[in-house]
């Protein structure tokens, strides 16, 4: 579709048109005009006519295109092409084996089953499309001069639509007007990204000042914006007014299709993207397609089947050639000439016969295998979905399988790569301790209270001591500081004895909100604020405040306002709390930047929901305002526009009832913490933050800027005008590593500088202690700017914001300019509690032989402590810490390791051969920088060698890219199955690289879930998913595939043996109908039932004995030799099934098809009984399916044999079955043949069960003994032992 555009500089409509014609294709922007300017939305004149309308069509097919398109898609699968080729081969008279039409039947059947499935899905899409297209919305009509109801599908780009509260947006709409006094519109984006907090969107800046209703007729601006793209968090463009003025547009101005309007009575906007070009639709991509390991293995065996097929065909062809040759020139009467009466030479006949045999033996490559596998997988996915134990009541979510075809991979995992925050931990933050101005406030009371909660919560749990106090001897030997040598390394082995910090159980959310303040700090806050109140009253400058007290109050101000938390009240969850005027009017000195002049109101900035940084007042207004003396406020107007407009009732809310909605749980924790010190956030508007302080009452901070958090900067800042000092202040909050570097180097001369230095040093010490305690640390800093500095910075920043190209980079640089020379205020320690059941899950996954690596962005000490808490690292084991500051150092380190543990240098063979005594003694901790060196080509092998000899690996401070590189490295080099689990956007790359990606649908949005194959509500569900469902899926599917190969080989071999008795002429004694439908109908159901429902071990046992998982890891259920064993068994069984009837009917008057029909029956019985031997659990479904199969065969046979006396050439089986059923010989055959055929397998299974039972087998018998056995030997040894024994015994 050609998009028109125009040069960004062009503003005039007339020029636009000319330009448009010239450059149609290469433009990168879209121009939107109001439709009202044109007579007809579709008319020639309308520049919007080329844009997609809002009618959506997600269907793939139309009535006409369905057949060709669907077939085309299906023929992308090679197998289908092969089967069609075979079927078409039948139409060549020289080689045909079956009735050509009949030979088409299975292919047509398979194709049509798939087609019907596709059609049904498409029909459902069509119905939902129709429903969506016919939803109503209000569109402004030029003719009626008002908003009229229209269907969604009639909405076009450039239309004005009016949205009411709780309505769903029909298209991507640029917000032009809102009934909200702050010109805001709240939307809920849960349908798009799963985030449930409200997002604020704001009216385009130039439409701010419209106090009356927005009148579409008067609108005459032109919008230039990006072409449609799928980035939900990005929208760039500008609006050009008639006056020629340009205003930038941001994603804050855009309402996305699919979102719901909340808390806003009415909003008006212009449609920018419609229908398929909306961001929501562009983000809609179907389920992912991956190929599982089992399927890859299977494809190898399918390839072997092809080889076997060709060998058989070749054998038959040669045989036929020789058979022909022996008759010489005298052709016997039964060797029929070709239709035109000529006779073929033996060689030509052999060649034709080769093709014929391919048709006859085609069943060997099971046409229904692929369909059956898909059916079974769908059932497996269904059962996983239905599992109650994978359902999380708290979030009302259950496991989602997003990739439908890799369920069995879950049973074969070897390495798990896990994120920490939000995956192992709750990502629910609890404020634990803080340090302000170099003084530590340990919040002992709070810690005691938390401990009490936990005791309450886990009375029956083993009690672990909680980290209310700092651990006795923290990780002092961890070498975080590189020494002075050019390349240095410190290799530290530490024996840890740690008090486990975290709770095994989550305590209630109350903890997050209720913080018992540290009395000392509380006193200081009170003292400080009373002093400030006093000063304010006496109009003294605030700078007279003692600096430690000033720091305390600044610290809390920063905690309160340096965030994007939105305040709401629990009674009315989605109503923004409005400030009541009564109290705040008294605080005359407070600056409320909401004067009567509307020009000031234009200074709005968004702050909610920005992960990118931006927010800027429009240039002119802010710059001018800076110089303006703030006029004394007219009290009447102070909150005039803010008065509640919902029901005319003012909200008088107690502080305690306020609820904070934060994008990141850290922020909420900090705000709640500040509230405990009576510094509470009471309201947040785009341009101001209101907080309440003791004695001082409500203070309104004019919010000049918010530089949102991002993972590169690792910090966020707000620029405010301090209401008490009237200074422009920057509050920055961020990771200690970055903030510490940005601290203004103290000038050592002055006493103030000395104090600063002391604070920095002390804070650093405490930060180390916090980290060692497993707390997440954040540093708080501030900076005071002069107006000139700010104006200068603002100028640059605005330039950056309006740039269309490279805006991100410019904004980044702009942020860097602001966040320098900070003054450190203090630091906080926040606890992120472990999720429920994480240590148990990790322990049992590890028993299952899974290697667990934790890759986290957190700092080393924090990560190590969490690792201890979740039992990833064991206090008993030695920790190998890798902190190198150069590549050489890293290399050296590796050599050292080998010297210390020469035995641990593993060969390149499989990981299970690592000496077990090594496996459980080492834990490896590596930081991001060292990881970067280790991942270098030259060192990666050594790194892997070391990592493999360790029981657990912990990578700290790693970037998302490093995470994915580690996964890729392990996956490619060790050839193991990898699973990556994470919850945040930073885990997406790792999730995508791993064989199986699991997303935790937690607190951090849905990006990880969107990228994942499976989405879990909680980490602990991984245990059941892998150990139970993974095991089942794998063993069921593996057994089914093996059975399929056996079944087809056995059936086809019957015909092969017959070739020896029909002159290798490609004749089949089995009626072609039976031959073709045997797989498709008669024998299809029992194996599907078994493949779906069979349980070799019960769920309970699998969870009690995670060791059983090794079965899948080593592919014990499906080894290459098993394929061949099954082939040999099939060979034997077919010999029995062929020769018993052969001898029983030898030299009798039996005719070809009367003799052949028992073969079908016998084969059916044999393979059903075979399935029965292999079935571990018999439910009524199994019985029913077997009974159904047999009944189906006889019914079909009887009907078929009675249906037509002259049809079905050449077999013409009229009344054959009926006669057979009167023949006692038939019954005698049906009894003896399956028994004789299955005797060896049955005997073998019985012997196996007694003589060398597999671990799985022992479940029934020696469960208790087994456990004792496992307890005696250490886990590593056991696994090894287990491996060896299993190699011997599993069949």
């Amino acid at each position: 579709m050609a998009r028109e555009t125009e040069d960004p500089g062009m503003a005039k409509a007339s020029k636009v048109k000319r330009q448009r014609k010239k450059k149609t294709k290469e433009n990168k922007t879209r121009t939107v005009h109001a439709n009202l300017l044109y007579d007809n939305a579709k008319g020639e004149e309308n520049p919007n006519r080329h844009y997609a309308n809002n009618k959506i069509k997600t269907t793939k097919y139309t009535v006409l295109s369905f057949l060709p398109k669907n077939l085309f898609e299906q023929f992308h699968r090679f197998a289908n092409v092969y089967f069609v080729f075979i079927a078409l081969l039948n139409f060549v008279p020289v080689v045909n084996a079956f009735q050509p039409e009949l030979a088409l039947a299975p292919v047509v059947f398979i194709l049509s089953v798939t087609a019907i499935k596709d059609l049904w899905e498409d029909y459902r899409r069509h119905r939902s499309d129709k429903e969506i297209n016919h939803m109503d919305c209000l569109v402004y009509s030029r003719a009626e001069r008002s908003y009229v109801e229209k269907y969604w599908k009639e909405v076009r780009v450039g239309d004005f639509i009016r949205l009411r509260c709780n309505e769903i947006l029909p298209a991507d709409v640029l917000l032009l007007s809102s009934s909200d006094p702050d010109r805001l519109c709240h939307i809920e984006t849960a349908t798009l990204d799963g985030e449930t907090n409200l997002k604020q969107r704001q009216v385009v800046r130039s439409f701010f000042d419209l106090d009356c209703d927005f009148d579409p007729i008067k609108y005459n601006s032109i919008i230039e914006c990006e072409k449609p793209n799928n980035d939900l968090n990005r929208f760039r463009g500008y609006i050009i007014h008639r006056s020629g003025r340009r205003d930038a547009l941001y994603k804050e101005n855009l309402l996305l299709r699919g979102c719901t309007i909340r808390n806003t009575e009415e909003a008006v906007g212009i449609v920018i993207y419609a229908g398929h070009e909306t961001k929501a639709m562009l983000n809609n991509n179907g389920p992912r397609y991956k190929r599982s390991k089992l399927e890859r293995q299977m494809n190898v065996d399918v390839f072997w089947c092809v080889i076997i097929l060709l060998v058989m065909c070749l054998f038959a062809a040669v045989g036929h050639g020789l058979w022909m040759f022996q008759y010489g020139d005298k052709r016997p009467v039964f060797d029929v000439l070709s239709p035109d009466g000529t006779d073929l030479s033996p060689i030509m006949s052999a060649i034709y016969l080769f093709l014929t045999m391919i048709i006859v033996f085609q069943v060997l490559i099971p046409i229904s295998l692929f369909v059956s596998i898909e059916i079974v997988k769908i059932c497996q996915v269904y059962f996983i979905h239905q599992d109650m134990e994978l359902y999380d009541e708290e979030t009302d979510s259950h496991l989602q399988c997003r990739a439908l075809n890799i369920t069995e991979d879950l049973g074969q995992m070897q390495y798990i790569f896990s994120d920490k925050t939000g995956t192992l931990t709750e990502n629910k933050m609890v404020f634990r301790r803080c340090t302000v101005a170099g003084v530590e406030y340990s919040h002992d009371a709070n810690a005691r209270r938390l401990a009490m909660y936990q005791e309450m919560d886990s009375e029956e749990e083993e009690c672990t001591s909680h980290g209310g106090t700092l651990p006795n001897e923290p990780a002092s030997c961890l070498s975080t500081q590189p020494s002075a040598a050019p390349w240095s390394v410190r290799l530290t082995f530490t024996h840890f004895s740690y008090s486990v910090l975290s709770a095994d159980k989550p305590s209630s959310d109350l903890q997050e909100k209720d913080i018992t303040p540290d009395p000392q700090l509380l006193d200081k806050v009170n003292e400080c604020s009373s002093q400030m109140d006093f000063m304010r009253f006496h109009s003294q400058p605030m700078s007279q405040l003692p600096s430690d007290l000033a720091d305390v109050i600044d610290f809390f101000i920063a905690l309160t306002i340096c965030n994007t938390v939105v305040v709401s009240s629990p009674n009315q969850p989605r109503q923004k709390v409005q400030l009541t005027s009564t109290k705040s009017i008294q605080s005359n000195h407070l600056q409320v930047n909401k004067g009567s002049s509307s020009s000031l109101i234009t200074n709005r900035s968004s702050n909610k929901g920005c992960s990118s940084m931006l927010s800027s007042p429009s240039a002119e207004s802010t710059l001018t305002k800076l110089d303006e003396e703030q006029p004394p406020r007219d009290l009447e107007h102070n909150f005039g526009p803010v008065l509640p407009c919902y029901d005319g009732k003012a909200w008088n809310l107690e502080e305690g009832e306020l609820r904070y909605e934060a994008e990141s749980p850290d922020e909420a924790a900090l705000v709640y913490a500040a509230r405990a010190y009576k510094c509470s956030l009471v309201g947040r508007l785009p341009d101001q933050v209101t907080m309440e302080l003791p004695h001082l009452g409500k203070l309104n901070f004019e919010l000049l800027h918010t530089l949102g958090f991002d993972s590169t900067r690792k910090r966020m800042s707000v620029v405010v005008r301090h209401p008490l000092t009237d200074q422009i202040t920057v509050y920055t909050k961020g990771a200690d590593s970055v903030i510490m570097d940005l601290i203004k180097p103290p000038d050592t001369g002055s006493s103030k500088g000395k104090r600063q230095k002391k604070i920095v040093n002390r804070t650093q010490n405490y930060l180390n202690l916090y980290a060692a305690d497993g707390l997440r640390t954040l540093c708080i800093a501030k900076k005071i700017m002069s107006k000139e500095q700010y104006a200068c910075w603002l100028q640059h920043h605005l330039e950056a914001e309006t740039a269309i190209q490279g805006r991100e980079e410019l904004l980044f640089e702009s942020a860097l300019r602001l966040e320098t020379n900070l003054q450190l205020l203090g630091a906080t320690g926040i606890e992120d509690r472990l999720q429920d059941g994480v240590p148990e899950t990790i322990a049992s996954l590890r028993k299952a032989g899974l290697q667990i690596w934790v890759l986290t962005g957190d700092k080393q000490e924090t990560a190590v402590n969490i690792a201890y808490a979740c039992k990833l690292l064991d206090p008993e084991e030695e920790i190998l810490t890798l902190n190198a500051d150069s590549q050489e150092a890293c290399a050296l380190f590796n050599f050292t390791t080998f010297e210390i543990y020469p035995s641990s240098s593993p060969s390149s063979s499989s990981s299970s051969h690592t000496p077990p005594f090594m496996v459980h003694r080492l834990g490896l901790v590596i930081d991001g920088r060292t990881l970067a060196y280790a991942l270098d080509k030259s060192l990666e092998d050594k790194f892997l060698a070391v990592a493999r000899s360790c029981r657990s690996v912990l990578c700290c401070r790693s970037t998302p890219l490093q995470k994915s590189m580690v996964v890729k490295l392990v996956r490619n080099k060790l050839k193991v199955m990898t699973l990556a689990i994470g919850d945040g956007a930073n885990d997406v790359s790792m999730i995508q690289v791993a064989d199986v990606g699991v997303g935790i649908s937690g607190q951090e949005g849905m990006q990880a879930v969107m990228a994942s194959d499976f989405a879990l509500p909680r980490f602990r569900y991984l245990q059941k998913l892998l150990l139970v469902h993974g095991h089942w899926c794998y063993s069921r599917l593996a057994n089914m595939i093996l059975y399929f190969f056996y079944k087809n080989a056995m059936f086809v071999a019957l015909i092969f043996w017959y070739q020896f008795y029909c002159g290798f002429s490609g004749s089949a004694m089995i009626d072609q109908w039976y031959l073709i439908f045997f797989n498709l109908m008669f024998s299809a159901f029992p194996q599907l039932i078994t493949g779906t429902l069979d349980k070799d071990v019960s769920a309970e046992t699998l969870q009690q004995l995670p060791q059983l998982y090794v079965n899948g890891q080593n592919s014990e259920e499906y080894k290459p030799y098993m394929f061949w064993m099954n082939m040999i068994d099939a060979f034997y069984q077919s010999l029995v099934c062929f020769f018993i009837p052969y001898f029983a009917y030898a030299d009798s008057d039996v005719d070809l098809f009367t003799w052949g029909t028992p073969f079908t029956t016998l084969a059916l019985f044999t393979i059903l009984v075979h399935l029965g031997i292999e079935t571990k659990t018999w439910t009524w479904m199994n019985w029913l399916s077997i009974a159904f199969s047999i009944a189906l065969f006889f019914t079909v046979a009887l009907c078929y044999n009675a249906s037509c006396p002259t049809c079905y050439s050449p077999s013409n089986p009229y009344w054959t079955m009926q006669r057979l059923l009167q023949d006692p010989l038939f019954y005698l055959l049906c009894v003896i043949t399956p028994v004789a055929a299955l005797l060896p397998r049955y005997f073998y299974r019985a012997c196996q069960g007694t003589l060398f039972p597999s671990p799985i087998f022992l479940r029934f018998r020696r469960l208790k003994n087994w456990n004792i056995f496992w307890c005696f030997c250490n886990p590593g040894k056991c696994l090894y032992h287990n491996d060896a024994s299993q190699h011997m015994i599993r069949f």
Partner: protein
Amino acid sequence: MMASSYNAKDEDGHITVSGPGGGGTLRGKKPENTAFKQQRLPAWQPILTAGTVLPAFFIIGLIFIPIGIGLYVTSNNIKEFEIDYTGVDMSSPCFNCSQNFSWNSTRPCTCTVPFYLEQPYESNVFMYYGLSNFYQNHRRYVKSRDDSQLNGNVDSLKEPSKECEPYAKHDGKPIAPCGAIANSMFNDTLELFYNDPNGTRVQIPLTNTGIAWWTDKHVKFRNPGGDSSNITASFQGTSKPVNWRKPVYELDTAADNNGFINEDFIVWMRTAALPTFRKLYRIINKTSSMVPTLPRGNYTLEVVYNYPVRSFEGRKRMILSTISWMGGKNPFLGIAYITVGSVCFFLGVVLLIIHHKCGNRSNSADISN
């Protein structure tokens, strides 16, 4: 281990409680707790060990061996006599016929084969002809027929199916019956004489009806134009198969055994499964005049030798057999049952030993439980 510690009160303070309407009490997605959905259907879990499987082996053995013995005895009670009259040997009476005979010979060659029955044949005796090395199951041979024509379809009579090629038309006239099977129909005539000890030569009456399947004779095969009308006229305009001496409407004199419903023809058209086969030729019915049906003594088989088999090393036999409930004489099934039964029994013993020697180890664990 998987105990959920969810507690309702946790809900209240949740930071990010979802929007209005999502009050949190509705648990819509919770899976149903049914045995099927939770994969907890009551199930029987057979455990295959020596101990559990052992009875099955003995039971199979105990059932199979008697059946096998019964079958073997039954098969042995069936009397069967077989004589090869191909005439490969110089000494054979049919040697001459076989030597200079081909499909094209016009003059029939007759030979007489004497034989001696050592046992009297009671009840009905079935007379078969047997062919060896004759691949009636060849793929192209099996297809070479037109069932529709054989069912009396007039259109197919005039225009035989292309499956019959190259035996569909001869000299422009459609062949009835068409196809290679019909063309190669067995056309020896066998007659049986009893040489009474007192010198007289009694011809044994051979019934040529009732040898084909009832459904074949009455449903599958029909003459064109119905049974009543003049059969010769019905086949007007058709040609006889190339190898046949006489047209299809002259196969027999009896109207209900002529044309396509001739039973010899029907029997031949039912193609044999294996290259060595027999086909029912005649039935010697038990009569009150002659008891036993075939007494012991000397017999003569008179063969009108029409059917050439020497070119493909084929053999022709005449078989006389009585019949039991399980068909003709074939000791194989009895032996098979006895063998399989014995093997089962033997394996059962082996399992018993295994069970006692090795099963104890695991059983001790059971006891300790």
